[in-house]
C-alpha cells in the first residue's frame, strides 16, 4: 500500500461520548486499590466534573487546536524578509555568547546540558526523523562515546582533543555495526533490536569490572584543555558546547539539504520507490545509523569531559526515550523543531523543580498524547509517516 497517510479516526471522541459519569467511575475504581478510598473519591469528583464539562472542554480544545494550527501555520509562512531573519539569527547568537556574563553557574550548568541534548537529539533525528528508522538504543552510542574518552583519559592519560576523533570514530563504527542486523528488519522489530543493543551495551558497562569499573563508574576524568584554557570553569565549558552545538546544527542542516539528505527522506517516504530510482537503500540506512551515532559519540565525550565522571546509571533506556521525546515533540525531521524539543525537555523539568517527581509521569502521558493529537510535533511541517 502506498506510504500510509496519517488519518486520525473519529473513534477518538467516542471515549467522551460514553456517559461521562461512568468513565469517571471506571477510572476511580482502577485507582482505588492503589491509594485507598479517600483518594479514589477525590479522583472521581475531579474526573467527573472535568468530563461533564467535556463538551465545552472538547469544543474549547478544538478551537485551541485550530488556533494552534493557525499559529504554527502562520509561523511557517511568515514571510520574514531575509534581512530581518538575518538580524534575528545574529541577535540570538549575541545573546547566547553574552549569556555567561550575567547568568549564575547553576543556569550555565543547565545551558551546557541543553547543548549536549541538542547534539544528541539532532543525531537521533537523522535516524528517526530523516530516515524513519525508530532507534530505541540510541543511548548506547552516547555511552560508548563517553566511556571511550573516559577510558582513554584515565587509563592512558590521553587528553580530550587527541581522543575525540577516536571516541567519535568508534561510536560511528558501532552505529554501522548495529545497522547491519537492522537492515533486514521492519519498523517495530528494528525498534526492539536496537533496544536490545542498548541494553547489552549498558550491561557490558555494568559488568565488565576490569575495564569499566562496573556500577561504580569512572571518576577523575580530565576536562578538555586547549592552549592554556582549562575548560573546568563552567563558562569556558559553556562556550565549548556552544561551538560544538552550532557546528552540529550547520553540518546536519547542510547534509539534510544535499543529495544524501534527500536520499534519507526518500527512504523514509517509500523505501521501495527509493530503490526503484537508484538509491542503495541498505547502504544509506547504514550511513544514517553511523552518522547519527557519530553525533551521539561527540555528545558522550563532551558529557564525560563536563561531569568528569561516568557511570552506567546515566545511560539507561529512559535516556533513549527522553531523546526520542525531544525529536517527536519538536517535530520529526525538522531541525529547528528538534532543537526546541531539546530545550523544552531539559529546561522545563529544571524550572518545575518541585514537580521533579512527576517528570517521568508527564513524559509518559506526553508521548501518548503526542502520538494521538499531534504526531507531527510542534514544528514538523510535513505530516511524517514514520515508515511502517
Amino acid at each position, binding site marked *: 500500500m502506498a506510504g500510509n497517510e496519517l488519518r486520525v479516526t473519529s473513534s477518538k471522541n467516542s471515549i467522551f461520548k460514553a456517559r461521562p459519569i461512568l468513565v469517571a467511575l471506571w477510572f476511580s475504581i482502577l485507582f482505588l486499590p492503589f491509594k485507598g478510598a479517600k483518594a479514589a473519591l477525590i479522583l472521581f469528583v475531579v474526573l467527573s466534573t472535568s468530563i461533564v464539562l467535556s463538551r465545552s472542554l472538547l469544543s474549547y480544545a478544538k478551537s485551541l487546536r485550530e488556533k494552534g494550527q493557525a499559529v504554527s501555520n502562520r*509561523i511557517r509562512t*511568515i514571510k520574514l524578509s531575509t534581512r530581518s*531573519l538575518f538580524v*534575528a539569527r545574529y541577535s540570538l547568537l549575541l*545573546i547566547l555568547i553574552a549569556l555567561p556574563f550575567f547568568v549564575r553557574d*547553576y543556569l550555565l550548568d543547565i545551558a551546557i546540558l541543553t547543548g549536549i541534548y541538542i547534539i544528541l537529539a539532532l543525531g537521533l533525528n537523522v535516524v528517526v526523523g530523516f530516515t524513519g528508522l525508530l532507534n530505541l538504543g540510541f543511548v548506547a552510542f552516547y555511552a560508548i562515546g563517553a566511556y571511550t574518552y573516559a577510558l582513554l583519559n584515565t587509563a592512558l592519560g590521553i587528553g580530550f582533543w587527541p581522543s575525540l576523533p577516536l571516541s567519535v570514530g568508534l561510536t560511528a563504527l558501532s552505529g554501522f555495526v548495529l545497522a547491519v542486523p537492522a537492515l533486514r528488519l521492519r519498523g517495530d522489530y528494528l525498534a526492539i533490536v536496537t533496544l536490545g543493543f542498548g541494553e547489552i551495551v549498558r550491561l557490558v558497562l555494568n*559488568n565488565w569490572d576490569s575495564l569499566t569499573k562496573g556500577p*561504580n563508574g569512572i571518576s577523575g576524568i580530565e576536562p578538555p584543555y586547549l592552549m592554556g584554557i582549562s575548560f*573546568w570553569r563552567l563558562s569556558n565549558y559553556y562556550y565549548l558546547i556552544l561551538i560544538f552545538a552550532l557546528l552540529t546544527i550547520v553540518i546536519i542542516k547542510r547534509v539534510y539539504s544535499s543529495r544524501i539528505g534527500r536520499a534519507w527522506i526518500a527512504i523514509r517516504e517509500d523505501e521501495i520507490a527509493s530503490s526503484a530510482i537508484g538509491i542503495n537503500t541498505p547502504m544509506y540506512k547504514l550511513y544514517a545509523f553511523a552518522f547519527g551515532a557519530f553525533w551521539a559519540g561527540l555528545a558522550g565525550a563532551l558529557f564525560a569531559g563536563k561531569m568528569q565522571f561516568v557511570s552506567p546509571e546515566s545511560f539507561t533506556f529512559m535516556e533513549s526515550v527522553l531523546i526520542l521525546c525531544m525529536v517527536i515533540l519538536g517535530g520529526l525531521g525538522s531541525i529547528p523543531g528538534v532543537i*526546541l524539543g531539546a530545550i523544552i525537555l531539559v529546561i522545563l523539568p529544571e524550572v518545575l523543580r518541585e514537580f521533579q517527581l512527576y517528570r517521568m509521569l508527564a513524559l509518559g502521558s506526553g508521548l501518548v498524547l503526542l502520538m494521538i493529537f499531534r504526531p507531527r510535533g510542534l514544528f514538523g511541517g510535513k505530516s511524517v509517516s514514520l515508515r511502517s
Partner: protein
Amino acid sequence: MKKYLLLFLSIVLTLSCAKKEETIKIGIAGPMTGDQAKMGTDFKNSVTLAVEEWNAKGGVLGKKIAVMIADDQRDPKQAVSVANKLVNKGAVGIIGHFNSSCSIPASDVYNRAGIPMITPASTNPQLTEKGYRGVFRVCGRDDQQGKVAAGFVIHQLKLKKVVVIHDKTTYGQGLADEFKKFLGGMVEVVYYGGIVQGDKDFKTVLTAIKDKKPELIFFGGIYPEAGLLVKQARELGLSVPFMSGDGTIDPKFIEIAGAQAAEGTYLTFSPDPQHIPTAKEFIDKYKARYGELGPYSIYAYDATNILLTAVKEAGTKDGKAIIERLHSMEFSGALGKIKFDNRGDVTVAPYVVWITKNGKFEEYWKL
C-alpha cells in the same frame, strides 16, 4: 529560519537570578527519593534536630543556620550535579552523601570548592584515600569492618571453606574485598563472584555455590538482595550460616527473608547505641519526634554537631579554616569521643558482630 525566533524567546525565559539573604547555609546530600529514600530521611531528621538545637541557642557566628536538602537519588551523576548546586548556593559545609558511589565523585566537587564534607555512612576506604583535605567520615571503614568479620570467622567460628559474594557496588564489593583480604591464607575462599543489584532471582548462583559445599556465605551488599539471597538459599536446602555487613542491618532484611530463614545470620555493625550512655539523650529526642531510629541517624546527628562546632571554633565561614579546625579538634558527641586522623577517618571505629535471634538483631561478639 523563522523558527529561530521561538528559540530566542525560550532562552530569554530561562534567565533568572536567585536572591541573597544572610544565613549560615549547610547542605545535606543523600537519596531523598528512590528505593533508599528511608536512609535519606534518617539523615534529614537527625540534621534538622541538631540544627534546631543550635538555632535555639542563637545559631552560630551570630547567624541563623539554614539547611539545604539535596536529593542525589543514589545516582552518581545526580550526586555531582547536586554537589555543584550546593557549592553554588554557598554551602559552608556538607553532611552527606549516603552511598559511597555518590560520595566519591561528589568529593571531587567539594574538594575543588574547598568546603568540608562529613559523611555519616559511606564506608568505602577509597573516599578518604584520594588525599582530599576536606573529606571526613564519622562512620567506620569497610576495611575495619572486614577485619572484624574475618577475625570472627577465623577465631570464633574457626571455619575452613567460605564463599564471598557482593552486589558489585562501591560499598558491597569494597566490603567483600576487605573481608577476603583479612582472611589471608587461613580460610579458603571457594567461590568469589558478583550479583546484580536490583535483581530478584539468585537461585542459579546459589546452586553453583551449593555445589562448592561452603561452611559460610559472606555477602557484601544491602538488605533487599541480602534478604532474597538468604531466603532462596534456604529454599535450595543450603542451610550454612550467612554473614553480611552494616548495609544489611535493617528490619526489612528479616521481613524479606522471613524470620525462620534469617535466624542466625551474623552482621558486622558498630556497637548498639542503646548501650552507649552518651547516646541515650539523642535517642529519646529522636524517637519522640520521628519514631524508629535508622541505622545512621546517630551518625548524621554527630556529624552535624561536629561541623557546627568547628564553624563556631574556627570563627569564620571560610572552608579552609573549618577544615583545619576539624582536623585538630576533639569532639565528644552521642557516639562518644570522636577524633579525625589526617586522612579524615575516625581513629577509633570499633565494629562488633551482631546476630539475628527470633526476628531481632542483638550484639553478639567483640574482637
